[in-house]
C-alpha cells in the first residue's frame, strides 16, 4: 500500500504549555500509531499523577530528567505512518535557551509546524520559531492555532492571529504558510475535522501533511556529487573497478554526462552509475550511488563531481549565518575544523558582521561575542577552497559545521549566504 509513498520530515517547536506534546500525542493517537502497551503505560502514569482521563502529552516523554522536570530538553524523533506517507517528527523544545536544538531539528525538515496558543496570539516565541524556520529555509510552514476551545472557537480570533503572523512572516523568507485552527486536546482539526468550526474551509493537519507537495523541496537543477569514499574491490571479478561512492546532494546525473572534478578542474564523462548490482541511466538526489568515469583521474574524499556547465563557487572566503551551539563562546580568530559535505578544512572566523537579537529580530552591531544560541552573520576564511552554493539554493552544499579541535565538539552550524 505504501509503495510509492514519500517520507515527510517535520519539526514541532513549542514550550511546555502551548500544547505541543498534546498535539503530537493526538496525531499519533488518532492516526492509530500508538500501541496498546504504550497506551496502558500512559494510562497508569496519568492515573498516578491524578489527571482526568489519558494525558496524551505523556507519549512524548523522553529521558528521566525530562520526565521529572516535565520539559523537552533535546530533540526526540518520533515516527508514524499513514496509508499516504511516512512521517518523521523532530520534536524540539521551544524555549530560547534551546535555540540550538530547534536549529538541529529544523535542519532536515520539509515542514515546520509552529504552535500558537489562541488565547495569546503571536508572541515573541512565535517570532523566534518563524525566524528559525526562515533561517533554516524549511520549505513549508504550518501555523497551528491551538486551544481554539478556550476562545469559543472564534473565527475572528483566528483571523486576527493569521494577520499577526502574516505581518511578521512577510519580513522573512517564508513562502508556503498554512493556518489551521485546532484543539489538540479535543482532537479538533488534528486528524479529524472539527465539528465546532464550520467556518474553517481548509483541511485538518494530518490531511495537510499527507497531501503537501514536497517533491520540489530538493534542488533538482544543480548536479552536485560530493565524493565520500572510493570503492576499489581487490577481487578477481572487479579488478579494474574504481567507483566514487557518495550521495547525490542535488540535481540529476546521467550516464555520458560531461563532469568536472572540483577543485582540481579535471574533466571526464560518466561511464556508469551503479547501485549495488544494477547500473542506472540516471540518478538524482538524494540517492546513494557509485559513479565510475571514462578516465583515470586522481579523485578522493572531499572532492566534488559537478556537471561541467554548472559549477559551484570555489571559495576560501565565505559569509555565513552562524548559530553557535556550544557552552564555550567563540574565541576571536581561533581556528576550527570546518566540515562542508565530505570536505574538512581548517577555518577561522575573521569577522562578526552583526548578531541578531532573537527576540526583536533586529541587528546588534556593537556586541561581537558569540555565545550559546547566538545567531550572527560572520565572515569565515578557510585554508583551502570549499565548493559552495548559497544555502538558499542548496541546503546540502550550502551548509557547514564548525568543530573545535580542542574538544572535538560541534560548536557551530552555518548557512552560506
Amino acid at each position: 500500500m505504501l509503495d510509492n509513498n514519500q517520507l515527510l520530515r517535520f519539526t514541532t517547536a513549542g514550550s511546555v504549555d502551548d500544547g505541543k506534546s498534546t498535539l503530537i500525542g493526538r496525531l499519533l493517537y488518532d492516526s492509530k500509531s500508538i500501541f496498546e502497551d504504550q497506551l496502558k503505560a500512559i494510562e497508569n502514569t496519568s492515573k498516578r499523577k491524578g489527571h482526568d482521563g489519558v494525558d496524551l502529552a505523556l507519549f512524548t516523554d523522553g529521558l528521566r530528567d525530562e520526565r521529572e522536570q516535565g520539559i523537552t530538553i533535546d530533540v526526540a524523533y518520533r515516527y508514524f505512518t499513514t496509508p499516504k506517507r511516512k512521517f518523521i517528527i523532530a520534536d524540539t523544545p521551544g524555549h530560547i535557551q534551546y535555540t540550538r536544538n530547534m536549529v538541529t531539528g529544523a535542519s532536515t525538515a520539509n515542514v515546520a509546524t509552529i504552535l500558537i496558543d489562541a488565547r495569546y496570539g503571536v508572541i515573541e516565541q512565535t517570532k523566534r520559531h518563524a525566524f528559525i524556520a526562515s533561517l533554516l529555509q524549511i520549505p513549508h510552514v504550518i501555523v497551528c492555532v491551538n486551544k481554539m476551545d478556550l476562545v469559543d472557537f472564534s473565527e475572528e480570533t483566528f483571523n486576527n492571529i493569521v494577520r499577526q503572523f502574516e505581518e511578521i512572516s512577510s519580513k522573512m523568507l517564508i513562502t508556503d504558510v498554512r493556518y489551521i485552527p485546532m484543539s489538540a486536546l479535543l482532537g479538533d482539526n488534528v486528524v479529524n475535522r472539527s465539528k465546532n468550526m464550520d467556518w474553517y474551509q481548509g483541511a485538518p493537519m494530518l490531511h495537510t501533511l499527507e497531501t503537501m507537495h514536497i517533491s520540489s523541496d530538493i534542488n533538482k537543477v544543480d548536479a552536485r556529487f560530493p565524493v565520500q569514499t572510493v570503492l576499489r574491490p581487490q577481487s578477481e571479478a572487479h579488478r579494474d573497478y574504481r567507483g566514487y561512492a557518495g550521495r547525490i546532494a542535488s540535481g540529476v546525473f546521467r550516464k555520458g554526462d560531461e563532469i568536472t572534478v572540483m577543485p582540481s578542474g579535471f574533466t571526464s564523462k560518466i561511464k556508469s552509475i551503479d547501485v549495488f548490482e544494477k547500473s542506472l541511466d540516471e540518478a538524482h538526489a538524494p540517492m546513494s550511488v557509485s559513479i565510475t568515469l571514462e578516465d583515470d583521474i586522481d579523485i578522493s574524499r572531499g572532492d566534488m563531481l559537478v556537471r561541467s556547465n554548472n559549477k559551484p563557487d570555489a571559495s576560501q572566503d565565505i559569509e555565513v549565518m552562524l548559530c553557535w551551539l556550544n557552552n564555550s563562546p567563540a574565541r576571536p580568530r581561533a581556528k576550527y575544523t570546518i566540515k562542508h559535505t565530505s570536505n574538512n578544512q581548517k577555518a577561522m572566523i575573521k569577522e562578526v558582521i552583526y548578531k541578531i537579537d532573537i527576540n526583536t529580530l533586529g541587528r546588534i552591531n556593537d556586541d561581537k561575542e558569540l555565545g550559546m544560541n547566538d545567531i550572527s552573520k560572520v565572515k569565515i576564511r578557510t585554508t583551502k577552497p570549499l565548493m559552495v552554493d548559497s544555502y538558499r539554493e542548496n541546503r546540502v552544499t550550502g551548509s557547514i559545521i564548525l568543530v573545535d579541535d580542542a574538544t572535538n565538539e560541534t560548536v557551530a552550524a552555518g548557512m552560506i549566504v
Partner: protein
Amino acid sequence: MSKYYLNYLDELESEAIFILREVWAQFQNPVILFSGGKDSILVTHLAKKAFYPAKIPFPLMHVDTGHNFPETIEFRDDIIKELGVDLIVGSVQEAIDDGRVAEEKGKNATRNTLQITTLLDAIESNKVDCAIGGGRRDEEKARAKERFFSHRDDFGQWDPKNQRPELWNIFNGKHFQGEHFRAFPISNWTEMDVWNYIKRENIAIPSLYFAHEREVIRRDGTWIPNSEFLIIEDHEEVVTKKIRFRTLGDITITGGDESEADTLEKIAVEVAGMRQTERGNRSDDKRSESAMEDRKRQGYF
C-alpha cells in the same frame, strides 16, 4: 508529480548507506555489532550494498552471552562465510569465568546487563573506534534521543544530556584516543519499515522469526522458549505451541507470540496489525521506566 523523488524505503536505504560509508571514511577500525537479530542482519545487508562490488570493509562483532538460540549461531556462521568477512566474538561466559562479572541469581536472572562489560572489553581490546549498531529510534524512548553518530567517553559511557548536535547530513566523528562512537544507520526505520524492506529485498533471516513449533512455558504473559538455561518452577508447564519471535535476544528472556505467519508476506501483515510494541515481550525492558536509558548510559547497545 515529478519522477525525481524516492519512495520512503529507498530514501531510508540511501540514508543508511550514506551513514555506513561515512563511518568507513571517518574511522580507522569500525565493526558491525551483530546479534543475529533482524536489525543487525539488515545493517549488514545495507553494508553489503554500500560497498559493493568491494566486500564489507570491516568485521562483524558478536557479543555472545552463551544463552543463544542455536539457530542464531548457525545463521551467524553462515553469513560470515557468505560475506567473507571476519568475526570477532566477545564472550560473556569467559568474562564470568575470569571473574570480570558476576552472574545474576534467581528465576528471572539474565545475562543482559553482563553484556555491557563484554562489549566494552571487546571494543577496547580490538581497538574499535566505531561500533555500528542496529538500534532504531522508534524502539524505546531513550533510543529516540540517539544521534546517528553517538559519542562514548573513554569509559564507554553515553551522556544523553550532552550530545553533539547533528545537523543536515554532516556527521562529526572526531574523538580522542580511548573514546569511541556508536553509529546507527537505521535510526529512522520503524519495525514496519524493517519488515517491508526485508520482504522487498528478500533478505535471509533466522527461522526463529517464522512461525514454528516449539517447546515453551507461559511466563509474564508471554511464551518463553524451553532451553537448558531455563529454571522451570513447579507450577509452570512445558507445552508445544506454534510461535514466532518478534525480536531476538537471549533465549532466556525473549518471549514469543502464537502465530501462523510462516512467510515474510504473512509476517508483514501480522506486524501491521500488531497492537503491542516490539519490545513489549522483552523482560530486560520491563524492569523499570528507564531500564534502557540506564543501560545505555553505561555502554549498552
